[in-house]
């Protein structure tokens, strides 16, 4: 359904030649929930940017539904059915939550429909639908609105880059429920999540471990997860809180 074939990405950074991705190849099958984990700085988010078209690889090819989409831009990939939730959601002065959902859905939404998407990400919808997507929203609220915009697109491949980053424990609990529900209801689509979270790894069909710009391991959850427990590639939310304190 979706495939990265021999993807490489090299950039020149302050007179230094850096190889961010080295020969990345994997595929995501129909109705699969795949999680990419691995140490920070290993290239995980770059893979998400390459899939969505925000960054262009310097080598390799990307296939989606059997079609080579390597040369396509962000807009064209989005229109083909690739959804992408950014790690750092963007704020907009003047655009409200309903505007974003309307743009995502590509049609006018009734208040009930807009509220439905917000309820699915655990937001008390009527309080939010007319809120401006500006600095008055917390990180956790923005993250959930970001996820709601991806849900509203009904993408064939949804990519979530660290959906749990920067949110509090309460938000985290309800976020896990969102992903558990998405996992249960998966239909004619696939989900790719970048995350270190044990509870997200636990619902994966497959796990890919990325380190130093390469794929270190890739296989079914049962095979990969046991080797990750206790490492930074599979942490519980409590561990993260302890690290912060």
């Amino acid at each position, binding site marked *: 359904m979706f495939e990265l074939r021999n993807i490489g990405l090299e950039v020149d950074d302050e007179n230094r030649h850096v190889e961010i991705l080295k020969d990345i190849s994997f595929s995501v099958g129909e109705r699969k929930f795949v999680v990419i984990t691995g140490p920070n700085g290993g290239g995980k988010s770059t893979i998400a940017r390459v899939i969505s078209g925000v960054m262009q690889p310097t080598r390799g090819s990307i296939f989606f539904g059997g079609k080579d989409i390597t040369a396509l831009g962000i807009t064209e990939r989005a229109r083909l059915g690739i959804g992408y939730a950014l790690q750092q959601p963007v704020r907009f002065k*003047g655009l409200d939550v309903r*505007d974003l959902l309307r*743009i995502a859905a590509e049609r006018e939404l009734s208040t009930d429909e807009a509220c439905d998407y917000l309820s699915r990400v655990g937001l008390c919808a009527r309080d939010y639908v007319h809120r401006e997507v500006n600095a008055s929203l917390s990180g956790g609220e923005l993250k959930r609105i970001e996820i709601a915009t991806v849900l509203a697109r009904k993408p064939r491949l949804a990519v979530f880059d660290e959906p749990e980053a920067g949110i509090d424990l309460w938000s985290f609990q309800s976020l896990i429920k969102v992903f558990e529900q998405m996992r249960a209801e998966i239909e004619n689509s696939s989900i790719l999540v970048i995350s270190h979270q044990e509870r997200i790894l636990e619902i994966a069909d497959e796990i890919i471990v990325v380190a130093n710009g390469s794929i270190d391991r890739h296989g079914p959850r049962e095979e990969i997860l046991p080797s990750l427990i206790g490492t930074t590639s599979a942490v519980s939310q409590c561990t993260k809180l302890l690290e912060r304190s």
Partner: protein
Amino acid sequence: MDGIQRRILEEIADLHEVPEGAYNLRVNGKSEGRRSTANVEIAPKPEGSGLDIRIKPGTKNESIHIPVVLSEAGMKETVYNDFYIGEDSDVVIVAGCGIYNCGVQDSQHDGIHRFYVGRGAKIRYVEKHYGEGDGQGKRILNPVTEIYLEPDSTAELEMVQIRGVDSTERMTRAEVAEGARLIIQERLLTHGSQYALSAYEVELNGENSAADVVSRSIARDDSYQKFDALIKGNAPCHGHSECDAIIMDNGRVLAVPQLEANNLDAALIHEAAIGKIAGEQLVKLMTLGLTEAEAEEQIINGFLK
């Protein structure tokens, strides 16, 4: 009125026909229709230079429309309209000017509006400026707005100029007495080689007086804008001004927020931010299926909403 005049009227006042309530419609320097009501009297000034509009005390939920349309090239006029708003009234005033210029000579309307807002009264004033026409003649609007707020009164001003006006110098002056509030929302979009100056001078003279002046603007192409807002706190008061501008292409913006505290208990704040549309905002909307140009348009429309 002809088709062009009707369309301009729709742009500036959302009017398709004669409005309800009191109104005066000025087209090419002449009154094309006027109506007073039991509570609102619209009368021409004796010397013919404008209108005196008197609103009786206690008038509630009435609207007054005074739109101006210029469709003859080379037309230049200065109009003085004075509004006397009676105590404890609550009214909406819709003004605005639209210029259609397809000739080579400049068209210019300078509207000087003075508001005397009585004790406890509340007004909402909506003013839209708009221009179109493919002539070489410039479309020029230089509005002057003066507001005198009596104790415990409120004035909310919404001033919008989106496209089409080649040159504008907008001066807004206000004097705010105790317990009175002034709220100004300005929306401005300039393009081509347009020039816009928007200057405010607000004097907070009474205890617990307050002012909030917020401008959101976009400067595209080679246009230039200057936002100059001075708030003087002469008593225990609250004053806030905000200029938020997006620049595109070769657009330029100068923001000059000024505060003058003349009283120890004057609380004054200003904010100014100028920048281009953030790349990440475009990326986010493109991941939702918009092209870059569509994304830009959505951001602009939202910003000026």
